[in-house]
């Protein structure tokens, strides 16, 4: 299966924080074995969980497996969910731990399955603007750019990559990331800063000097 470039999906941020009561009802029903309720929870978070894992692994097949396994594991562990954090944060933690364990095992295996793209995206004005004619990006196709971007991300440690993916790609706040990563906000900021520095150096040819 190949990935395509498309307009980013609108993130419905109101879903998770604004309906905790409704969500807790679903969680409670799922905890008692109601698979319909759990199906609803999966539909709510499938795209975000999948996207996070995908950006961490840069591989669709791995992301597909890990996302499904994360939801299965979350269902099996629902009894241990005490509601101390939101279901969303708890689910994210499971997915992130699973992904990090997987990445540690995969350490030496790096492959990209992202070389197929929808080249119509090159007509997207935002992307065209990104490929400035004053930098070497002029000569780089989107495919190459995408590969370089993913290769650079894969060079970061898991914790640094996760900070960048959750903040700069997924758009999560420092507070949310701190809860997911089980660390304080200062640590998140520091990891983010260090990761960006590294990425800046790795992608120096592609990042337009400001």
């Amino acid at each position: 299966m190949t990935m395509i470039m498309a307009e980013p999906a609108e993130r419905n941020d109101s879903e998770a924080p604004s309906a905790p009561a409704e969500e807790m009802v679903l969680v409670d029903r799922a905890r008692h074995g109601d698979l319909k309720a759990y199906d609803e929870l999966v539909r709510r978070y499938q795209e975000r969980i999948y996207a996070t894992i995908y950006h961490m692994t840069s591989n669709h097949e791995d992301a597909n497996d890990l996302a499904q396994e994360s939801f299965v594991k979350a269902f099996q562990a629902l009894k241990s969910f005490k509601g101390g954090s939101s279901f969303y944060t708890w689910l994210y933690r499971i997915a992130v731990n699973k992904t990090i364990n997987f990445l540690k095992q995969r350490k030496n295996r790096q492959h990209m399955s992202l070389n197929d793209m929808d080249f119509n995206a090159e007509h997207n004005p935002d992307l065209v603007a990104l490929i400035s004619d004053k930098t070497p990006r002029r000569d780089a196709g989107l495919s190459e750019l995408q590969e370089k971007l993913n290769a650079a991300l894969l060079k970061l440690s898991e914790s640094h990559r996760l900070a960048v993916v959750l903040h700069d790609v997924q758009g999560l706040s420092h507070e949310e990331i701190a809860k997911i990563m089980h660390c304080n906000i200062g640590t998140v900021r520091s990891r983010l800063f260090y990761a960006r520095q590294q990425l800046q150096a790795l992608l120096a040819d592609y990042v337009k000097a400001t």
Partner: protein
Amino acid sequence: MSENENDFEALRRLLALKRREVPPPGYFEDFSSRVIGRIRAAEAAPQMPWLLRLLHAFETKPAYPVAFASGLCTLLLFGIISVEQSPELVSNPALTGPMASFSIAPATGQSLASVVNTNPPADVALFGSPQGNNTYASPQMVNYSLDGNN
């Protein structure tokens, strides 16, 4: 920090490209049904062995392996401390009972040798009297002189 954010603005715009990487249309339509299918299959499968369940618990809750490792370290420390203290236990007759409490140090002032009689006197029961008087016999030093004066 906002200055840092500005420093990385170009990088952030580049990273925003990642948001456009999405699976083909329709991928998420049956995603939840695949998850539910896996849950049903897992429920129908035979129960995992305890070791696999333990590993599963470790994976789900990072606190478990930490607690497990801490427990192991505590046990190890306890073991080491116990072993280090064991010579004191052996040398303390009050703690080790009558069978092991003897000394082979020669009695001073004796002509040839002295030994310790480890046999209890006939009128002292080693393991308590039938009347329930469980006082242990304390070892008594008996000196044997071999100089022919006896």
